């Protein structure tokens, strides 16, 4: 038995307790000041950092795209030379996939919202969250620094060998790419572990697995995908670095290596990667559809099982990115079948969403515009995906703009549209203010029309023979008109995004005050203030049903909160995996600057090792020292722990 107050459930409505609030604020608030900023390890601050950084990368990647579109608007244009163009499309793809899509859809949204949605005060490993963020930030900075020095990666966003190998890409362009990939993907894996442990062990009491919000289910499944998929690209990037700088022969056929090993490793990561990007979008759609149809999602179990199926099947289709590499027929047939099969669970989800809307009371608020945009765009992308899954068609369309059209329809439709819908929906929660409705609508329509104007013609121009990654094309090709239209569309999208950025900045300062729950939604993040206070919930709620807020409104006599947790220490309640019964208390570590230094050391080691192998040894030693600092307990932590322990003299 400990020295602390017992943990119980109180059925009284949780009234405001100023003393409790003051103590919780003092305990959970981040340290002030310049250096204090580097120590913050609360999930909301880390989530906002991920969001803002990812949005910056979105803008940078978008600017690259606009310049590329300007180059391609007319035949035989000279805005960009071939080397510059190679860097541009590589940087565009790399930035969008590695520095925007996964960080925003998974790391940002999950880090910010999963603890709130499960009723926790923080993520499971707050210092790891801080480390992950800084690792991601530094990886992105390294990549862009090289680009701005005209030494940017230029071998495509997947950096295939032998082009990116030592023979054909001298210098350190591809090394910067590999370093960035390793750092950002290690960062994502760390976040995945945090999310899994948060979801499995830190849920509010009563939130059994069949009561967790669909968004949380999706991020959990995505976290598993991240853990199983990302090591493949970490390994392939490591092998590329070793081949380029240390003379290894992984990909050199002359010495028994194989260039296709790189492709297998990359796409074993690459296909689950696109589901890692799409599934959170699907989770957002489930959330928005439920809230704006004023009913719980139709087919909760079906949606969960479909998401699990997509997660699994996503690992079995990677070779459909390699249909043109000369693989055996049996292999091609298998992967065609597997790729077609993924349409089934995806379709189930879509029908569940449609059923929710049809059987609910639709409220066409601005976030729902993005949902309908998603339906239109993503389904079109899915249709071309089913076409490309068929080998004979793929062999004709491979490396043409048809594939570019498909991938943008599914990625922008499946992730970016839901992401913008998520911003519309959750901006009030994060900032406490509503976005401007008019600016939001203008943004949506500019983006929707611009998107279709940009990418639909790419299907046609691709089938007419325009290949990918060419910096210009001849006048006699006849692709000029469609390319011109695509460029106009791209600038419409850019204009829309400009409205979006203006909207974000203006509304954050002067938007209409939102209140706790402006959308009258049902999930737990809306059960606290907007923005949430440092400690999230004054009292941890006890959950009786899925949409807790709606349930508490319908049955207020059953609403309950947890009492007995300390408010003078960073204490959280750990619950059991399946049924979320209270299990034990957990003391989180204090905010610390060590994670920041750890990220600095990792980044420095990675860069220096490219130039000087011994840097790895030195860097590893430094990293070891930093880790010791990270885990070394402070007096305060030890005292807080001691207070909760009872020691038998025989063992002390």
């Amino acid at each position, binding site marked *: 038995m400990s020295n602390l107050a017992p943990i119980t459930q109180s059925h009284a409505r949780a009234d405001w307790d100023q003393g409790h609030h003051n103590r919780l604020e003092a305990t959970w608030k981040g340290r002030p000041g310049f250096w204090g900023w580097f120590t913050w390890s609360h999930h909301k601050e880390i989530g906002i950092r991920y969001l803002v950084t990812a949005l910056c990368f979105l803008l940078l990647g978008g600017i690259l795209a606009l310049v590329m579109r300007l180059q391609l608007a007319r035949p035989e244009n000279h805005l960009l030379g071939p080397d510059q163009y190679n860097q541009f499309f590589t940087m565009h793809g790399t930035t969008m996939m590695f520095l925007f899509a996964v960080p925003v859809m998974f790391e940002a949204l999950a880090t910010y919202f999963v603890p709130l949605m499960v009723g926790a005060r923080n993520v499971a490993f707050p210092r790891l969250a801080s480390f992950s963020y800084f690792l991601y930030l530094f990886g992105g900075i390294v990549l862009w620094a090289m680009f701005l020095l005209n030494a940017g990666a230029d071998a495509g966003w997947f950096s295939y060998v032998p082009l990116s190998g030592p023979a054909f890409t001298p210098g350190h362009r591809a090394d910067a790419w590999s370093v960035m990939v390793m750092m950002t993907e290690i960062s994502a894996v760390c976040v995945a*572990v945090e999310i899994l442990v948060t979801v499995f062990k830190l849920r509010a009491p009563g939130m059994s697995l069949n009561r967790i919000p669909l968004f949380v289910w999706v991020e959990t499944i995505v976290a598993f995908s991240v853990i199983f998929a990302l*090591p493949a690209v*970490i390994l392939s990037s490591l092998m590329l670095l070793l081949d380029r700088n240390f003379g290894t*022969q992984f990909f050199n056929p002359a010495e028994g290596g194989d260039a296709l090993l790189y492709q297998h*490793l990359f796409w*074993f990561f690459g296909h689950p990667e696109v589901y890692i990007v799409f599934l959170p979008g699907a989770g957002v759609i489930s959330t928005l559809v439920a809230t704006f149809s004023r009913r719980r999602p139709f087919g909760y179990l079906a949606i969960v099982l479909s998401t699990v199926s997509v997660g699994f099947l996503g690992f079995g289709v990677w070779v459909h990115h390699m249909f043109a590499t000369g693989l055996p027929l049996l292999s091609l047939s298998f992967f065609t079948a597997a790729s077609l099969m993924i349409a089934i669970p995806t379709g189930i989800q879509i029908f569940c969403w449609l059923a929710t809307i049809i059987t609910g009371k639709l409220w066409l608020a601005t976030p729902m515009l993005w949902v309908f945009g998603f339906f239109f765009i993503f389904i079109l992308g899915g249709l071309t995906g089913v076409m490309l899954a068929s080998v004979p068609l793929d062999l004709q369309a491979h490396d043409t703009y048809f594939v570019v059209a498909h991938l943008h329809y599914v990625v922008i439709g499946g992730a970016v549209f839901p992401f913008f819908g998520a911003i519309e929906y959750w901006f009030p929660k994060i900032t406490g203010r509503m976005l401007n409705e008019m600016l939001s609508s203008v943004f949506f329509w500019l983006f929707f029309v611009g998107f279709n104007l940009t990418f639909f013609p790419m299907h046609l121009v691709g089938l007419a023979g325009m290949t990918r990654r060419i910096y210009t094309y001849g006048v006699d090709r006849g692709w000029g008109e469609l390319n011109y239209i695509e460029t106009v569309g791209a600038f419409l999208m850019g204009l829309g995004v400009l409205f979006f950025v203006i909207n974000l900045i203006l509304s954050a300062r002067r938007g209409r005050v939102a209140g706790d729950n402006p959308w009258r939604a049902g999930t737990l993040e809306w059960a606290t203030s907007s923005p949430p206070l440092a400690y999230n919930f004054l009292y941890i709620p006890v959950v009786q049903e899925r949409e807790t807020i709606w349930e508490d409104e319908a049955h207020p006599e059953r609403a309950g909160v947890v009492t007995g947790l300390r408010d003078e220490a960073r204490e959280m309640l750990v619950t059991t995996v399946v049924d979320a019964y209270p299990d034990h208390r957990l003391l989180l570590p204090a905010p610390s600057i060590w994670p920041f230094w750890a990220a600095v050391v990792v980044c420095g080691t990675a860069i220096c090792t490219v130039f000087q192998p011994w840097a790895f040894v030195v860097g590893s030693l430094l990293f070891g020292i930093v880790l010791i600092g990270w885990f070394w307990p402070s007096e305060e932590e*030890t005292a807080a722990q001691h207070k909760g322990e009872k020691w038998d003299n025989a063992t002390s």
Partner: protein
Amino acid sequence: MWWATAGIMLVEGVLLAITVASYFYLASRNANWPPLDTAPPEILAGTVNLVLFLVSLAPNFWLKRVAGSGDIQKTRRALYVMILLGAATLVLRVFEFAGLNCRWDFSSYASISWLLLGLLSLQLLTDWADTVVLTIMLFGKHVRAGRFMDVAESADYWNFVVGSAAVGWVILYLIPRWL
């Protein structure tokens, strides 16, 4: 904390599995594995190390039991044993690298063998360093109940390290002789 250890084991396990898959993939692309001009690795150092790993499971099991009971003296003693055993395995690893009979840049066989052994050695080194730090933390004012839990989980992680080493032994020493 158990979940953190389980998370690390899962991530490292996946990385190891993918490395092993890459090993077999490269083997499948070569008529001779190892290449004709490369002898299979010297089996002595690796096998002695494997035996050492397997033998270490016994004191490791004891460590977990005494850490779970909260007996600080016995826990410290068990940790000393594990540190010594760990140091011995690290020394033998150096001989294993030398016994690979090829430099990492000779061929894809050499590269993947060095990579596999290198990743396993890095895992071993980091766990050994972690064990040393945990031992230091069992002295002085930072001793608390959670330390014993950390030591117990570290013991679980050592089981994983031994398992990985066993898999590595089969891949590095037996496969070149079987294929």
